[in-house]
């Protein structure tokens, strides 16, 4: 007769229970107890280790919620700490998630500064009532008016231009003119743009609605979709690769992705970049047509319930020093917001351009309108 494990244990318990029961209700084996205890003490220990060591209530510190990725903000913050002695605590994440967190935390929030990579989200934060107005001479002097909030709730830190990159040889720059012209039948099956879920596309559409009205823009979006060479997917870099590989001839992208491709240490990327060139649309022409290239900003605002307002202002001022502005240009090929700040060689090679002076506040207020318009036009 073979016993299986279940029978064996049942037998063991039966015999033990008989033996122990007279002594009372104690059938705890100290050895087994130890096992469970050690598991829970491990648990307690690991939670203790995971708890943040830094305190965020001190005086000389600034707490940051940042939608700018760690790699593109941390080096700057470390330099800030070294220069000013003001420490920092950082959480990075997606702007929408962090904004939601700010909203829910309300007056309990530890965050002093909210950083995003587009003006639309800053405006949304302002509308949600989680930012406060800041009067700061340095910021107001250095940042041009159209790149900061008119009510002083947020300030642009770097500019990002969304423009056309075309395939040299297959497209002559003379053929290109405006965003509006991209719906011309001659571009059929020649355009590459990422999906409409992307905030930069949404902002671009807002700027078009501002210039031409909603009806015309919806017609434009439908025409654009009709000229797509492929279904929108992937990121801006993927669109550039598609143009380089010949799957399409023109891509609408943010310039820094192109800059990154040029400066890549991979031979393959450089070869691809060789085949591409920048075109700045809407430079001349009458009225709205000559409004300039669509630009967005990355920027920051001080939270309504910030406890370290002075330190936070110092950080904002630090972001617009020539040195920091140059750093953005060099590390990520973004354009400075401070007109006098130097730009990188790569950016110089793109040539100068006229930017759309659209007040970026509308990017936030009209974003939903743009998304619904893109839904209707079939822009996936």
């Amino acid at each position, binding site marked *: 007769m073979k016993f299986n494990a279940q029978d064996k244990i049942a037998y063991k318990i039966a015999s033990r229970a008989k033996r122990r029961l007279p002594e009372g209700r104690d059938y705890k084996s100290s050895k*087994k107890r130890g096992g469970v205890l050690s598991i829970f003490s491990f648990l307690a220990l690991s939670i203790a280790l995971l708890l943040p060591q830094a305190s965020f209530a001190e005086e000389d510190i600034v707490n940051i919620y940042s939608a700018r990725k*760690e790699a593109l903000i941390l080096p700057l913050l470390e330099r800030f700490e070294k220069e000013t002695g003001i420490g920092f605590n950082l*959480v990075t994440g*997606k702007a929408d998630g962090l904004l939601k967190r700010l909203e829910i935390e309300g007056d309990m929030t*530890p965050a002093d500064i909210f950083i995003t990579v587009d003006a639309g989200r800053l405006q949304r934060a302002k509308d949600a009532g989680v930012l406060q107005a800041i009067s700061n001479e340095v910021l107001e002097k250095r940042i041009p008016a159209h790149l900061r909030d008119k009510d002083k709730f947020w300030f642009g830190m770097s500019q990002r231009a969304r423009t056309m990159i075309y395939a040299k040889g297959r497209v002559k720059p003379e053929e290109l003119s405006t965003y509006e012209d991209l719906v011309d039948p001659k571009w059929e099956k020649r355009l590459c743009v990422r999906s409409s*879920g992307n905030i930069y596309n949404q902002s671009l559409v807002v700027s078009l609605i501002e210039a031409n009205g909603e009806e015309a823009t919806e017609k434009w979006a439908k025409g654009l979709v009709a000229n797509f060479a492929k279904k929108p997917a992937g990121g801006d870099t993927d669109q550039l690769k598609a143009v380089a590989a010949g*799957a399409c001839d023109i891509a609408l992208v943010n310039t820094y992705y192109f800059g990154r491709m040029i400066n890549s240490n991979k031979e393959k990327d450089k070869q691809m970049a060789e085949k591409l060139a920048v075109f700045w649309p809407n430079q001349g022409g009458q009225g709205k047509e000559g409004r300039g290239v669509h630009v967005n900003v990355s920027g920051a605002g001080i939270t309504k319930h910030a406890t370290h307002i002075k330190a936070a202002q110092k950080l904002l001022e630090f972001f617009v020093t020539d040195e920091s502005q140059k750093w953005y240009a060099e590390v990520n090929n973004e354009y400075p917001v401070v007109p006098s700040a130097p730009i990188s060689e790569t950016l110089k090679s793109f040539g100068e351009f006229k930017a759309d002076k659209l007040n970026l506040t509308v990017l936030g207020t009209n*974003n939903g309108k743009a998304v*619904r318009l893109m839904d209707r036009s079939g822009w996936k």
Partner: protein
Amino acid sequence: MKPQTLTAKPPVKFFIFKKPNRWVILTILIALIMSLPVLVVGSAIFQPLNENWQHLKEFLLAEYIINSLILMLGVSVGVLSMGVITAWLTSMCEFPHRRLFSWLLLLPLAIPAYIIAYTYTGLLDFAGPIQTTLREWTGWGIRDYWFPEVRSIGGAIAMLSLVLYPYVYMMARAAFLEQSIGALEASRTLGSTPLNGFFRVALPLARPAIVTGLSLALMETLADFGTVQYFGIGTFTTGIFRTWFGVGDGTTASQLAAMMLVFVFALIMLERWSRKRAKFHNTSQKHSVIKRFQLKGKMAFLAWLACLLPVLFGFILPALQLLYWVFTTAEETIDASFFSLTLNTMLLAMAASIIAVSIALLLAYGRRLHKSQLIGAGVSIASLGYAVPGTVIAVGIMTPFAFIDSALNSWMKANFDISTGLIFSGTVFALLFAYTVRFLAVSVNAIESGLGKIKPTMDDAGRSMGLTPLAVLRKIHLPLMRGTVLTALLLVFVDVLKELPATLILRPFNFNTLAVRAHELAADERLADAATPALMIVLVGILPVILLSRAISHSRAGEQ
């Protein structure tokens, strides 16, 4: 001593309040706390529909539903075919490298779906090595030939199937190994072929386990955001994000999420129903060593190939691509902070898995003790979290937590003049809670299937000897289900390693995980730089996966 099987079901009690009991109260309380985030989201269904819902219905809803259904259907076919066939081959047949395959087949579990999507896009899109080489060889231009587009719904089905089939494989293999060989042998003596025996005996016996694996895979499919977003496919999850953040309408987004929960609930019901219809504890206590069917020649090769392909495409190829990227970027991406990041992630995953499994044990055992519908419904709702996108869970957690924090803070201020600040939200506590809610289904499923195999007579025997219910759990069930508990722990561990959206929103200051690091670089379109943390997730995940495989093999008496 004649082995007995208790098949008579105890009567289902509807009114548990007749006899209030510590276990009932505890189980319902825990289930309620765990359901809290899902209920917070689900409550949006009672809000009036606004014009954004109209817009959604008019332009997008049909697409979301159809795409989600196609995705689920495709993934079902993918994971079932890969999972069941390989499970059968490795447990019942003998062919070269069988034992090696038995654990290699689990490895894709360690790769997050969005990572495999990135690697295949890198390999297969027109700028990737395969198409470039093709063009160089043939001299074709890019528009001269047709090549399957990775970034499509078919691609998404393939990606998700490749990383999710191990759930089915694992469950099916455990079921096949645990089946008494007697039934199968009896079918052979009655003249059925091995194949026939598989379809008519083994498969029906293993069906509950297979459906459990399938429902886990499908819940992950529904909750997936990274893959479908990267591929530009409109599903419930992408729709929720678009409505919430693009249009800025949290209410409509929650309503969409609540609608998705209906899908999930159907899945859970399907799983329950399948398990209820086939409730069997092993009828025979004899566990003779499986006499594996010896495959020879062409058949052996086919079996070998059938096991190789999922491993090759689900693990080896993507891992190689990652490794290649790591070599090109290692200097910049590996520094001191990288190792503390790894340690951090591992500790977090371990702590979360212990918590989730402890709670799952209490819930599953509470349900076993008191078969009331109230408890059953409570446990089911608590398991919904697995199919809800992490971001939605995160918001569902932050809302009540911030409320508690704020109440606590004002109370402390009023009475003691101390400001407590954020205690629950914005700390590791919130993060661990989120992981528990999100992955409770995985551990509950594993534990319930383990508990289900223990005959109820064991409980009766234990109780009649004077053990309390808790002591029965601790002294009888836990030792018997050691393998199961380990399985549950490891599954949650691997899932937490890969978790991204909830971590992104809930993590405290200066706190990073491997998945977050990988995501940040990948989202910045620096795929090659993202490879180092991604590969580390895979490496950290492999060890538990191998342990898992051993646990399953050893779950069968007489199996080495």
